[in-house]
Structure formats: structure tokens, C-alpha cells
């Protein structure tokens, strides 16, 4: 055991009121004051490299370890502030963004953070071209031109050029995404093997300047972070954050109640409802940008009829599901932009109306009703949701046959457009409305071998007009006008689409009441541990 670990162990034990030596007490009552312990299902983490992270849990990790150029205010998403950037300007034609980099920031390694590091981080993400790279490449950046388009003109100045004029907030929101986390270019370059941009190293190591440093990651087991005592924004109050992968919600609840963990992340209503009466535990609810919906494949000629599509929207018991299955895990939301996004429509025009659904089916030529299969992930709450839909749709003359399967099987089928109906969820990739418009309201090419495969494509919904409107909205520089354009798009999608959007997800977190300062933002990469402390 190295000396640092020994010291930490000592600190942990002392603060727990114990001493070294054969432990007389096998079970400790509380976790140490300077350590935050969390139980969380984080088995989706496959990499810790900000250029590659594209999973919810990974994104949250990135937010603790890496600083970004700019961020948005979690309480008011419309406010963007500089993190590594002190200030920025946008050229008159809207194509050149110039950032001034804050002085005096140091990486965990001790290297100073400069505009070159920021440029390298963005160039690196584009050249590696992994999952999240599209957030940057949609501005016309390619591995060939990125060194030209994103560059440091001096140690304190970064220039970012786009290929066209876009809404400035669109560009800025994309730069707040995890993929633009700033990496220590000196360190990463020194770890490069066979031109991999240090990817092998960054997969399981950290090279950031954020409030926490990675100490250990064991996939599906343990993630441990250590405070960066020299953080430029002020050192965190806790010394360590330990995150244990605990798959069972019941086990998470047990550990939380016993005080073996401070935070439980994956409780279901049956676990957190009884906890509401416990004064040692606090339940926090944070709306997230994830939508629960089901899609109807338009390759199916029955489902392609507009009246049939509409019938489905009246065949779902939104309020009933919100009260039972979702019970705190989500709120009814039917438009494709989640609450909190620019232009988000907060009207929910559809309610459960089986008679109307029947009428619509009759108009479509199916007086005796229809039968449809629905693919669904065999996890909670998707399965419960699917069963509820099955029940409510039956009363509307729609027989739903459920095909539950593992998540990856469902996606495989979805991507091949082999489904009839399919229940899934969709999470926003960045905070700009284009992220969801681009997938729910655009389908540039409906051919089977199309390059872009948004959700509209997956459901074979051919919409050249809406595609054009979506493209126009992202170029609109007047924010008010732009918001109006998205509202119009949402209304059209609500009216005509093969998507039945039902809920916006709420993340429910159970914390011990002596824990303070955890920030649960609207996306996973805006959950922050930086200011956490324990009384």
C-alpha cells in the first residue's frame, strides 16, 4: 500500500472514530466525513476519455474531472458562462468565435492550461471521430480541416470557425457538451501509441483540470475520485468520492438506510416512497432531457395511415401511467423538446380517449381494430409502460403484442427498421433544441442505406418539408424567431408524426440528509459533486 493510500485510510478510519489494529467493530455505523460514497448503476461506462464518452454515467464522470470551455447554468439553461474561457466574441458573419482563455488554470499534472490545450482537445475529438464527435463535426469540421478551423492564435486566444452561419447559441451549447472537455495535451501526447491520440491511456486515466482526479476505475465495480486540492475554482470539501456499482435497487436502499452509502441513484418508486418519511434521508428530483416514446414503423402500411397514427396517440393513458408506473420518475410530456430547452412546447394535447381512437381506426378502414407487435426493453420502467399501453390500447381496439428483449437486441432490430411499434427512450445530446429536432423532425434520406439515421429514418417517416424547416431553424440567428420555429415544428410533429412521446424523465436521487451541495442538473453531464460536503 502506498503512503497516500495509507494516509487516506488513516484519515478515513480516524474520522469514523476508529483506530488501527484488529477491528473490534466489524460494522461501521457511518461513512467517513471526508468521503462521499455513492451507490449507482454505472455499468454503461465503457471509456473515461472525453473524446469518446457517449454514455450517461460516463458523461457525469467527465463533468467532475474535466473543465470545459463554457458551461450553462443548471438553474437557467439559457445562461451560458465561461469556464476555461473568460469571455468570447462572435464575428459579424456569425462564423468565427474567438475565446479568451482564463489565466492561471493548472492541470492535475501541474502543467498550465493554455489555448493550445483547448485547440488540441477539440481537434483530437474530431480526428478520433468516435461517437460524440458529430457534435463538433456538424459545424463542417473534418479531420483534414480541423487544425485550420480550430486553432490557438496565442496561449490565451482560441479561434473556432464554422462552415456556415448558425444560430450562435447552437454553436455555444454544443461547446458545453462533454466532448469539449479540455485535456492536458502535453500529458496525452506523451502517452500516444501508434497515433491513437492517447486514447488507450485516457480510456482509464484522467488528464484534466477539474475539481476531481481519477483514482481508480474498475468497470461495473468501482469508480473512485480524489479531490484536486489545487483546483482553480477552490478545492472540494471532501477528499474522496467513492462510487460503487450496485445493480439492485433494493440493495441500494438497504445500504442507504444503513448509512453505508450517502447517495443512492437508482431507486424505484417502491424503494423511495417509503423513504419519504425517514428524516435521515432526502429525496431530490431533477428533470432530465430524456423522453420516453414509442415509434410506429411507416414501412407497415397499416401504421402508415395518418388516422391510425393518431389513434395511437389517443390510446395511451398518460395520466394514469404518470401516477402509477412513473410515480415521480417522469412527467407527462408530448412534444419532442424537453422542458428546459429553447422553444420547448409545454402543451400536452392528447389524453386517453379510447372512443376517439376507435373512431379514427374506423375512418382508416379498420372498424374491427388492428393488431400490432411492440418491441420493448425488458427493464423497468419500459416493461411496465409497455404493459400499461397494451391494456389501454386494447380498449381502443388496438391489440398490442409485446416482444420484450435485451436493450441491445431491441436497438439492433430498430436500426434495421424491422419493428412494427417500438418503445424506447431518447436522451438529448446537447442543450440546443437542434439535438432533438434533428432526430424527430428531419430525415434527409429515407433509403435503407442512408448515411444519416435519425429516429425519423428508423421509423421510415419520409418528411422532406420538415427536414428543410429543421435545417432553417438551426441557422436562424434571432433567438425569439428561432424559438417560434421550433414551436411550429413541434406542433407539426405532434399532429402528424409516427411518434407517441409520453414522458420526460425525472432523475430521483436519495441522499442522506447530512449531505449538502450536490448539484443535479438537467443532463447527466451537468450533475456536479464539486461543492459537496457532509455535516
Amino acid at each position, binding site marked *: *500500500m502506498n503512503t497516500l493510500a495509507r494516509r*487516506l485510510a488513516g484519515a*478515513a478510519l480516524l474520522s469514523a472514530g476508529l483506530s488501527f489494529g484488529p477491528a473490534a467493530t*466489524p460494522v461501521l455505523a457511518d461513512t467517513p466525513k471526508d468521503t462521499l460514497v455513492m451507490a449507482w448503476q454505472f455499468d454503461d461506462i465503457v471509456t473515461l476519455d472525453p473524446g469518446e464518452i457517449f454514455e450517461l454515467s460516463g458523461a457525469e464522470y467527465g463533468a467532475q474531472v474535466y473543465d470545459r470551455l463554457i458551461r450553462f447554468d443548471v438553474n437557467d439553461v439559457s445562461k451560458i458562462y465561461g469556464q476555461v474561457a473568460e469571455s468570447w466574441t462572435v464575428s459579424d458573419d456569425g462564423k468565427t468565435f474567438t475565446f479568451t482563455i482564463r489565466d492561471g488554470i493548472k492541470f492535475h499534472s501541474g502543467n498550465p492550461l493554455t489555448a493550445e490545450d483547448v485547440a488540441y482537445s477539440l481537434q483530437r475529438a474530431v480526428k478520433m471521430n468516435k461517437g460524440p464527435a458529430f457534435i463538433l463535426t456538424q459545424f463542417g469540421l473534418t479531420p483534414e480541416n480541423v487544425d485550420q478551423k480550430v486553432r490557438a492564435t496565442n496561449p490565451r486566444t482560441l479561434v473556432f470557425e464554422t462552415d456556415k452561419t448558425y444560430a450562435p447559441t447552437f454553436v455555444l451549447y454544443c461547446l458545453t457538451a462533454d466532448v469539449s472537455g479540455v485535456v492536458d495535451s502535453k500529458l496525452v501526447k506523451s502517452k500516444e501509441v501508434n497515433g491513437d491520440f492517447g486514447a488507450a491511456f485516457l480510456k482509464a486515466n484522467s488528464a484534466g483540470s477539474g475539481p476531481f482526479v481519477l483514482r481508480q476505475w474498475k468497470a461495473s465495480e468501482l469508480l473512485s475520485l480524489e479531490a484536486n486540492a489545487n483546483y482553480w475554482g477552490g478545492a472540494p470539501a471532501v477528499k474522496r468520492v467513492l462510487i460503487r456499482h450496485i445493480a439492485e435497487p433494493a*440493495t441500494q436502499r438497504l445500504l442507504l438506510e444503513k448509512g453505508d452509502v450517502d447517495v443512492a441513484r437508482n431507486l424505484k418508486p417502491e424503494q423511495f416512497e417509503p423513504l419519504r418519511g425517514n428524516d435521515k434521508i432526502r429525496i431530490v428530483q431533477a428533470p432530465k432531457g430524456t423522453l420516453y416514446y414509442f415509434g410506429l414503423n411507416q414501412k407497415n402500411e397499416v401504421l402508415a395511415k395518418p388516422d391510425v397514427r393518431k389513434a395511437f396517440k389517443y390510446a395511451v393513458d398518460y395520466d394514469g401511467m404518470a401516477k402509477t408506473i412513473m410515480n415521480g420518475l417522469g412527467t407527462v410530456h408530448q412534444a419532442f423538446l424537453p422542458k428546459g430547452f429553447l422553444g420547448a412546447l409545454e402543451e400536452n394535447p392528447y389524453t386517453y380517449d379510447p372512443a376517439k381512437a376507435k373512431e379514427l381506426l374506423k375512418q382508416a378502414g379498420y372498424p374491427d381494430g388492428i393488431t400490432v407487435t411492440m418491441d420493448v426493453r425488458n427493464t423497468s420502467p419500459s416493461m411496465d409502460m409497455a404493459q400499461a399501453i397494451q391494456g389501454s390500447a386494447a380498449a381502443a381496439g388496438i391489440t398490442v403484442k409485446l416482444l420484450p428483449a435485451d436493450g441491445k437486441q431491441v436497438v439492433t432490430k430498430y436500426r434495421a427498421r424491422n419493428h412494427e411499434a417500438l418503445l424506447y427512450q431518447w436522451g438529448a445530446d446537447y442543450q440546443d433544441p437542434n439535438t432533438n429536432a434533428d432526430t424527430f423532425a428531419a430525415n434527409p434520406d429515407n433509403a435503407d442505406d442512408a448515411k444519416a439515421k435519425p429516429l425519423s429514418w428508423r421509423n421510415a417517416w419520409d418528411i422532406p418539408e420538415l427536414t428543410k424547416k429543421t435545417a432553417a431553424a438551426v441557422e436562424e440567428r434571432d433567438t425569439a424567431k428561432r424559438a417560434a420555429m421550433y414551436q411550429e415544428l413541434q406542433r407539426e410533429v405532434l399532429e402528424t408524426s409516427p411518434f407517441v412521446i409520453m414522458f420526460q424523465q425525472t432523475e430521483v436521487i436519495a441522499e442522506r440528509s447530512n449531505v449538502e451541495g450536490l448539484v443535479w442538473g438537467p443532463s447527466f453531464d451537468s450533475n456536479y459533486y464539486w461543492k459537496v460536503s457532509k455535516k
Partner: protein
Amino acid sequence: MPGRRHAIRGAGLLVSVALTVLGLLLVTFLIGRVVPIDPVIAVVGDRVSADTYARVRQELGLDLPLWQQFLRYVGDVIQGDFGTSVLTSRPVLEDILRVFPATLELATAALVVGVLLGIPAGVMAAVHRGRWPDHLIRVIGLIGHSIPIFWLGLMALLVFYARLDLAPGPGRVDVFYEGLVDPVTGVITVDALLAGETDVFWNALHHLVLPAGILGLYSVAYIARMTRSFMLDQLRQEYITTARVKGMSEARVIWRHALGNIAVPLTTVVALSYASLLEGSVLTETVFAWPGLGLYITNSLLSADMNAVLGGTLVVGAVFIGLNLLSDLLYRLLDPRAR
């Protein structure tokens, strides 16, 4: 010529082991190909471009015909290459070597429980055949064998951890002891002692009690049953009567003579239950968040990480074959009649 016969038998054994392993490889390979999951999506995720998708598909060799893929797979496995895990982004073999000691620790502790309780219980049952101790032991054995292990595990956690505070919760050590001891052997109790961290050692030992006890209950049932029937067999033999007539104490007759004579078949029983404990740890590990091979395979399965699932299954299969082989050899070595 007994020597030659041995050699032929040995060769036959080797061939049959080789064939078994090959069969195992074929089955695991086919399972990996039959599941309706696109392995490319498992690697690159859901939203990549068509180019990246095609590149990775080729990198994975999925564009080759099935038989070529199988040959490649066998070739790789022979060289110790089980592929890379999607979940951990590391070579599967490395992962398995890291998690296997935890399973070994759990299964070994469970085996100790099984042997220490199972053999005396079996002897008792045989000696008191048909009377209440026999019935009691058989009923306990039946319960131990038929109650689902995950349910028993959850109940044990609820009672001994949540209610009575007698045992620590899930995991190999309390969370804030995690990572304090550098892995040398991977068996945390041993590593803690090597590092001189007695508190971690005690903590780890406490964490071992519940899962090992519950897992051990399974082999208690099996070992007790087998011991009982071996014992009954012995107690009928003439030499036992002779010993008793000679005035030897009953305890000496039973524990020394009879038990001594069933030591050989018992070795096989113990080896076989060790193998099934290693397998049976899958559910126990899930309930107790025990980061061993069982949990690794379960997690891999849930995230469609086929390389890891195949590698893990192969290792479990190989251990099973290995222990079978070992018990077979021991049997031959110890019991002259088997030669």
C-alpha cells in the same frame, strides 16, 4: 503390461479432454453468433456514422464466413486471446484473471463450510440411520438444495445486515476500504495480510461470512448425502464388525476406520462440489455485489458484451473439466481397485 495400458488410458483421457474443450469452444462461439444482437453496435454504440460502423465490422472480422470466424476464434483462444471486452475496453483474459481470485476466495470459503459441516453431518446421519438426526439432516439438506440462492441471500442480508447488524453489507470490504490494498494475489484476505492491513483483513473476512455460508449450504447438502451413503456402505462391512468385536471404541471405529476408508471417493465428491461452487457463485455474487467471475459474466451478459461472456463461460467450463480430470486422477492414484 500395466505401464502401457496406463499410457493408452492417459492418451485417451487427453483426447477426450481436447474434444470436450473444442466442443465447449464451438458451443460458446455459436451462442455468440446466434443471439440477435449486432456485435458492432455493442462496440460502437447506437449513433455512429455508416463509415465507422463498416470499419469496425471489418475490424471484428464479421465480414468473413462463419467457419473462418470460428477458426480465427479457436486460433485466438489457443494463443490466450479472448478478444477485448466492450464493457471494460480491456483484454477479456486480463479481466478474468483480475476477477477470478474473488470467485476463488468465495468458493474456497464456501467449500470449507461445506466440508466442515457436510462430512460430520453425513456421518451422523449414517450412524443414526432412520432415526431423527438422520431425518433432520436430510430435511436440512433438501431445504439447502431447493431454496433459490438469490432469495436466501437477500433474506440473509435483510436479517443479519439490515435488522440485526451482525454482518456487513454487500461487497468484499466496506466501500471506503476499497482500493486500499494493492492486489498481489487478488485474494483480498491474503493481500491484506501481506500488506499488514489487519483491519482490512478482518473487514474482508466479515464480508466473506454471509455469502460463503449461503453458497456453502449447497455443498453441505451434497457432501452430507454422499458421505451418508458411503458411510452406510462401510458400516455394513465385516471389518467394522471385527473392530467392534475387538472392543474398539465406537467413535474410533467410525471416525478412524470407516471414514478413513471412504476418504478416496469423498475426494472426488469434494472436487466436484468445488467445481459446482465456482459455477454456483454467479447468483451469490450478484446478490452480494461480489466482484468475481460470476458477477463479471452476469454484467457482460446484461450489456451484450459477447467476448466477455464467451471468455468467462469458457473459463468456467475449463475449470469444470480440469477439476473433473483432477478428481479422476486422484481417484486412480489413491484407489488401487480403479487402476
